[in-house]
């Protein structure tokens, strides 16, 4: 299933670019008129005269060998260009995921276990922050923490690990902002639902200590919807990272994808799309594996309902 959807996704990415209006030769030459001999050389090198499926096959086998073609703007291997940027995006998404797991689930558990003022205020705050898009969060964070308070740098990557952490903090918060609120809301709802169930009430009346009750009876059962929503939102960060990277001028894959889309550097667009879709599908698959670990009733290959 994983391989099938990756294969079809790669086909869609290739076909979309293949169907793009415009002539491949003029795209390669940058619009200049070329002598017939160089046109023939280019056609042979890029297999332009062969049928569509053959071209797809060449592209796919090359991609599997790590060769994603050449950027027509930068005249460099797309794989090299991707490799130099992938850690920015990976680091950013990872940092944001940690924030979501720590604070999103943490807030949800606290609000779910303690009805009252804390719970109500969490609900109101998350209703608002769930609706704040990453780029709005970005400008507000820059305004507050770099312009007014000067705690964090506003733009760009760092050089050492520590300065990278500092440079990535605001972007990671901006990226995590709305996802964190959504995870907190779902966590709260499922904790509340579990603690009202009969087996938990029975455990309470049997005098089972609260700590054990929460860990063994509430969290264990609530873990499944929490994993689902955390998985979905973390996977979606992979695409949203493009927005945050652009807002903070970070040199990542997403920001490069946007530049490539603007300049119609289609080999780069294809390559980055393929990498991002693969990451998205793999994260979703990892969540499925996690289900099987969390819930003995789920066997691998069947989706949790």
């Amino acid at each position, binding site marked *: 299933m994983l391989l099938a959807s990756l294969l079809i996704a790669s086909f869609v990415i290739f076909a979309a670019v293949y169907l793009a209006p415009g002539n491949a030769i003029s795209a390669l030459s940058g619009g200049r008129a070329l002598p017939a001999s160089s046109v023939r050389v280019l056609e042979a090198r890029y297999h332009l005269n062969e049928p569509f499926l053959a071209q797809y096959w060449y592209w796919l086998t090359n991609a599997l060998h790590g060769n994603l073609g050449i950027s027509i703007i930068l005249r460099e291997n797309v794989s090299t260009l991707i490799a130099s940027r992938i850690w920015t995006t990976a680091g950013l998404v990872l940092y944001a995921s940690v924030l979501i797991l720590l604070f999103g689930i943490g807030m949800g558990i606290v609000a779910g276990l303690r009805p009252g003022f804390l719970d109500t205020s969490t609900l109101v705050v998350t*209703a608002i922050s769930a609706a704040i898009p990453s780029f709005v969060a970005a*400008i507000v964070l820059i305004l507050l923490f770099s312009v007014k308070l000067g705690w964090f740098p506003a733009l760009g990557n760092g050089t050492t690990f520590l300065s990278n952490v500092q440079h990535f903090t605001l972007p990671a918060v901006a990226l995590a902002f709305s996802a964190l609120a959504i995870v907190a809301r779902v966590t709260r709802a499922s904790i509340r639902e579990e603690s009202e169930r009969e087996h938990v009430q029975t455990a309470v009346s049997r005098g089972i200590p609260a700590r054990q009750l929460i860990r063994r009876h509430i969290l264990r059962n609530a873990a499944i919807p929490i994993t689902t929503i955390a998985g979905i939102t973390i996977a979606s960060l992979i695409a*949203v990272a493009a*927005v945050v990277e652009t807002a903070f001028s970070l040199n990542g894959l997403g920001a490069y994808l946007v530049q490539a*889309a603007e300049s119609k550097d289609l080999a780069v667009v294809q390559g980055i799309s393929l990498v991002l879709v693969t990451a998205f599908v793999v994260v979703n698959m990892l969540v499925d594996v996690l289900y099987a670990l969390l819930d003995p009733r789920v066997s691998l290959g069947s989706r949790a309902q």
Partner: protein
Amino acid sequence: MSAQVSTIVAAPSTRRSRSLSGLRGTGVAGMVSAAVIALATIAAIFGPLIAPYNPDLPNLSLAWVGPVGGHLLGFDFQGRDVLSRLLAGAQSSMLGPLAVVLLSMTAGAVLAVVSAWRRGAADAVISSGLDILFAFPGILLAVLATAIFGAGLTAASIALSIAYMPYVARVLRGAALRERSQPYVAALEVQGSSATTICLRHIIPNMLALIVAQATIMFGWAMVDLAAISFLGLGVQPPAPNWGVMISENQTGILQGYPLPALSAGVCIVAVVIAFNILGERLFVQAQAARR
């Protein structure tokens, strides 16, 4: 005869008179949300007419000037009136999400009803096709589309509609399956009503509450994603006014100490998205309560 019976059988379906009382049932937060949406809609329709100044007329000597006199929100980086640009920009900011919602809901509802009605092979093909679409995050598909067809609202909106379709279809397919197993459907089939008639006149109208709730939530998503695309420079093209564009073109003001133009566009987006989220959530709860 069959028409007469069908009105009796379909009596519990949603009628127009219920839509207003339905809004009342969403509580204070729902009513406030509806009011915010109504305001944004009025701005989207009449914005260019009620804008106090020309939203496209630059005056560089007024760049980054704060609120003065009749200019409530001051001027942007090119000295254009911010309030007028917000009002004029409502149109493209609301029209894009509307198109995405209409396209993805129509396609998603048709796919859901077809796979619930035919089941078997048709259902399997549609479901696995939608599973593959799940592999494409909406923003990525929109960026891909603008890379190929050129930057603009049309390519981005169509791409987002395709990316949202599987989410719509998955929610509605469950509801359509439930509706399909209702006794009134079997009764209509026995009377010889055609599948198209049953689906269009009975199953879809009975799912309307859920469809409206889903569309409301989806409008908020589409607004965020399309504003992000415009923020990235791949959607609405400046100098055309748009809330996403206004944030990106005035972002330098944040660093220079003139945050008002970018912030006010951000506030517009957030207010409308919160309104759609709250109203959508309430409508969902109502749709589910009505089913029980």
